């Protein structure tokens, strides 16, 4: 009997059931593959680090370090259980493809036979040797510098060159992304490594580095112990280093968020579908009650259908989700050694979540059955329409378009029904808008101060010039550029910032931090989230990352070694930075950094003094590019996009989600309109009978969708701004910046994306509404 009723119902509501099934399939597919990807990436990263012998903390020593002392100290650390090490030589801009210098990532040349951290090929097999004249490079470096497998690259170190053939992509746990960690390991054959090592330039100890990968149970103990040692440059624990895979994790999170939105939309459709079915079967339910069926039995009858759809959808979603998870994993595994150790379990869990959610919610929605009585079934019509009939708005006192009046009246009469559309469309639009807002922020000058120092144009200088500047007066150099620009009709101030590693003593412990020494930076250009910028050598600014890690703040005194012994300085300001995973120090302009001790600068920052328009800024950047001999000239937004490197992937994901959102909108519109036509068959026939033509009735139906969609997209636009803040601030916060000014592409969020959603709704509802042409005015004869 149950199966007879169900098969009849499935045939009667083919479109509604089919669309619900599609949503269940998509939701199950995304939930399963999103979970699978997240489990693989989050769990697999640790495994990758273990396989690579990358240790729990990596320490870099530069220049005049004492290897014996480092290892004695490590041996003394109780938590250390072992370590590996490797010697490397760094030389910027030393790789060329043809005549083009590879700009992204500075090579760190290492002997393959002495590598401390292991590498793997794209099949996840360990690379144990490299032929002479050949090299493996990580994928991110190859992509960033447009290098392909089999191509010949030229190593050019201070004029001495030799060629290497790129054998393929390697997976390098710690150094896998030059956009996030500035050096890229070049693991070479011993013969080639000797060619590098024997270059006279490397007699300068500044180009030499020793990297330790340390296994320990207490990274803080090792960090503190290493900071005291000569030549200490950097220490990063595994959690910090794993941040380079943030984008891979972000993709999983976005997929999970999308799945969540799809599940919500499925619930909304489910609720609509159940309410519609119950309204239609009002009389049958009353009769079933009259003959003695209990509420539970009737609810079970209705829930079974949705359980069936949930199971079928979840099973199809499961099978579709497994290859999707594979594709996602393959994409994430381009840079990582990832194995799907949990198998299909996340997909199974995803499908079970969907089934449980749909069945549970369907049961909840059928609760309305309890309110129906046999008397209601007899008293009211077969559709139960009089039972739920509500008044909307009265016909106004002046003539208006009747289709528009009827549309508004319907929305106001059945607000819950239209809320279904509003929620679905609002959610679908919101996902796209939040990503657009994030991409817009990443592609704006909003993050300029967090990337380094604020500026309107950023002129990158060549590595040769940067080396040369180590021995020159930076202030005079910046003044020279400023004078040239001003004489050339570009009213501006030019300043720069030296980046050097200085030694600090905080509560008796030594630390080495990458320090920004501003040269000629006008007051107020450097932003501080708390306090004020340092104005004399006795003051410094500290990044929020260090302040929170060491629990120090404004007013605290620490010691700094500017190069001529330690001196006390007071912390006057706290700032946020993306650099060095959120850790850094800012000095005052007159900090006594001795000539020749500079770490090196890479950029001249230009701040226009005449507050030009965006168009003028663009033209000026173009002029500087053409007329001056800089390596590269960026506008502020270009510099931020380049530094963060995340805008591109987020934009790509945004367009993918936009496509999914439009599909959701189209499906929901088709489902709802088909349902409305079925539910309002009598009203349509009546209107046709009394003289409303097809066009008017189509307009009435489409206008309802357009009105609700307009409200949905307006709501989505308004909510997207605080929601972006709510969602993305913790993400940016994990990278070291919490105080940031979000930027919005108002054309996109006010016009383009809402317009696309509105257009798709109108198109889908219009196409579906044409089905009402099959309803004839003479169908009035068949109304019961």
């Amino acid at each position: 009997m149950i199966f007879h009723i169900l098969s009849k119902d499935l045939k009667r509501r083919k479109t509604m059931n089919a669309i619900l099934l599609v949503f269940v399939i998509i939701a199950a597919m995304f939930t399963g593959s999103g979970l699978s990807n997240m489990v693989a990436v989050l769990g697999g990263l640790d495994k990758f680090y273990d396989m690579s012998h990358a240790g729990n903390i990596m320490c870099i020593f530069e220049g005049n370090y004492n290897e014996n002392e480092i290892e004695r100290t490590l041996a003394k650390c109780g938590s250390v259980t072992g370590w590996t090490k490797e010697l490397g030589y760094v030389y910027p801009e030393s790789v060329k493809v043809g005549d083009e210098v590879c700009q992204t990532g500075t090579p760190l040349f290492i002997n393959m036979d002495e590598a401390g951290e292991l590498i793997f090929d794209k099949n996840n097999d360990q690379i144990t040797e490299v032929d002479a004249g050949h090299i493996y490079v990580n994928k991110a470096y190859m992509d960033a510098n447009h290098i392909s497998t089999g191509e010949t690259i030229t190593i050019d170190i201070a004029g001495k060159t030799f060629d290497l053939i790129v054998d393929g992509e390697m997976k390098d746990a710690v150094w896998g992304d030059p956009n996030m960690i500035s050096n890229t390991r070049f693991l070479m054959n011993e013969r080639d490594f000797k060619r590098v090592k024997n270059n006279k330039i490397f007699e300068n100890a500044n180009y030499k580095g020793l990297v330790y990968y340390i296994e320990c149970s207490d990274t803080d103990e090792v960090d503190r112990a290493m900071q005291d040692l000569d030549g200490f440059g950097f220490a990063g624990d595994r959690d910090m280093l794993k941040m380079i895979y943030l984008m891979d994790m972000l993709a999983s999170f976005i997929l999970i968020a999308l799945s969540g939105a799809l599940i919500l939309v499925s619930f909304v459709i489910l609720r609509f579908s159940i309410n519609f079915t119950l309204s239609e079967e009002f009389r049958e339910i009353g009769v079933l009650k009259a003959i003695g069926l209990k509420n539970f039995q009737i609810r079970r009858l209705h829930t079974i259908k949705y359980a069936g759809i949930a199971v079928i959808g979840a099973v199809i979603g499961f099978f579709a989700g497994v290859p999707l998870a594979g594709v996602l994993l393959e994409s994430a595994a381009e840079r990582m050694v990832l194995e799907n150790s949990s198998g299909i379990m996340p997909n199974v869990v995803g499908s079970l979540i969907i089934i449980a959610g749909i069945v549970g919610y369907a049961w909840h929605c059928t609760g309305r059955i309890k309110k129906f009585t046999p008397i209601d079934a007899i008293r009211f019509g077969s559709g139960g329409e009089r039972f739920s009939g509500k008044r909307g708005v009265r016909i106004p006192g002046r003539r208006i378009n009747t289709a528009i009046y009827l549309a508004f009246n319907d929305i106001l009469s059945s607000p819950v029904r239209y809320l279904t559309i509003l929620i679905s469309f609002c959610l679908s639009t919101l996902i796209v808008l939040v990503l657009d807002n994030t991409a817009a922020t990443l592609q704006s000058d909003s993050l300029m101060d967090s990337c380094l120092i604020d500026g309107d144009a950023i002129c990158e200088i060549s590595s040769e010039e940067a080396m040369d500047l180590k021995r020159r007066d930076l202030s005079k150099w910046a003044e020279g550029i400023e004078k040239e620009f001003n004489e050339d009709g570009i009213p501006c101030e030019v300043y720069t910032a030296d980046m050097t590693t200085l030694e600090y003593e905080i509560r008796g412990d030594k630390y080495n931090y990458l320090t920004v020494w501003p040269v000629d930076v006008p007051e107020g250009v450097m932003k501080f989230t708390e306090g004020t910028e340092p104005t004399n050598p006795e003051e410094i600014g500290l990044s929020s990352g260090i302040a929170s890690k060491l629990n120090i703040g404004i007013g605290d005194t620490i010691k700094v070694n500017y190069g001529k012994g330690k001196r006390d300085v007071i912390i006057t300001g706290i700032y946020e930075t993306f650099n060095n995973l959120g850790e850094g120090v800012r000095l005052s302009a007159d900090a006594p950094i001795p000539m020749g001790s500079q770490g090196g600068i890479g950029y001249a920052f230009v701040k226009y003094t005449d507050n030009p328009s965006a168009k003028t800024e663009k033209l000026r950047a173009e002029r500087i590019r053409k007329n001056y001999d800089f390596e590269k000239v960026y506008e502020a937004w270009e510099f931020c996009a380049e530094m963060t490197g995340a805008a591109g992937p987020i934009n790509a994901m945004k367009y993918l989600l936009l496509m999914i959102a439009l599909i959701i909108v189209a499906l929901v519109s088709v489902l709802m309109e088909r349902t409305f036509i079925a539910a309002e068959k009598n009203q349509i026939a009546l209107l046709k009978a009394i003289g409303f033509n097809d066009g008017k009735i189509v307009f009435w139906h489409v206008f309802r969708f357009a009105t609700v969609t307009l409200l949905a997209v307006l709501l989505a636009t308004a909510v997207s701004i605080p929601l972006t803040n709510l969602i993305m601030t913790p993400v940016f916060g994990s990278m070291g910046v919490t105080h940031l000014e979000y930027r919005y592409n108002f054309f996109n969020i006010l016009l383009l994306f809402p317009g696309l959603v509105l257009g798709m709704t109108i198109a889908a509802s219009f196409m579906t509404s044409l089905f009402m042409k099959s309803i004839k005015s003479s169908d009035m004869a068949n109304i019961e």
Partner: protein
Amino acid sequence: MANEIRMENEENVIEVRDLCKTYITNKRQLNVLRNVSFDIKSGDMVGVMGPSGSGKSTLLYSVSGMDRATAGEVRFCGRDITKLSDSKMAEIRLDEMGFIFQQMYMLKNLTVFDNVILPACQSKKLHETMKETKARGEELMRKFGIIETADNDINEVSGGQLQRACIARSMINKPRIIFADEPTGALNRSSSDEVMKELVKINNEGATIMLVTHDAKVAAKCSRVLYIVDGNIKGEFELGKYTEEDDIKTRERHLNNWLMEMGW
């Protein structure tokens, strides 16, 4: 009220010639109407009777243009409406025809009054302001004794009141003819009498009505009755105009006798 319906005395409002309607179901041809011909003069109240499945409602829907005839001609005020487009036909139904259905169907989210005036809001025929339209709607509702239900939802009034509201809706655009498909079919005797009283009243005021019914008591109030069997008009009975003074029992008896002759 008489001036609300256009009088075209002795002129044919409807002329039906050789009207055929055929349905094809499961590859079977079903001839529902077979060469039906008749006229309806202005001011007539024509009842259509016949056994179930004889084609009464199909005739009404084909004549009113709600359904397309398979063959034949239907002239409405001299104009063949079988050749008109759906859109043009909708326009004629809106402006020149009124409809009353068995189920008293109304738009559920509108009040009774808004349902009554909705066709007038859509029509441009009378060139009147909304204030005038509303005043006319109120006048009609008052005339049919349902003004107190104007602001009610449709589920708050009785079947008889609702059907009277449907009559008011059918008259709101001052149509040339009103088509009624079993207008009392869903009502009890008392409500049925109330509704027929109103229909007779407007007919006496000049309205032309074509009415389908299976109730001899209802048909007895018509001026003319067509008896249809198997898609053919088997006979026609002239009763003359019914007034309050007429003895309804006598009319019923005459009609019943004739119907018996027809095989009722």
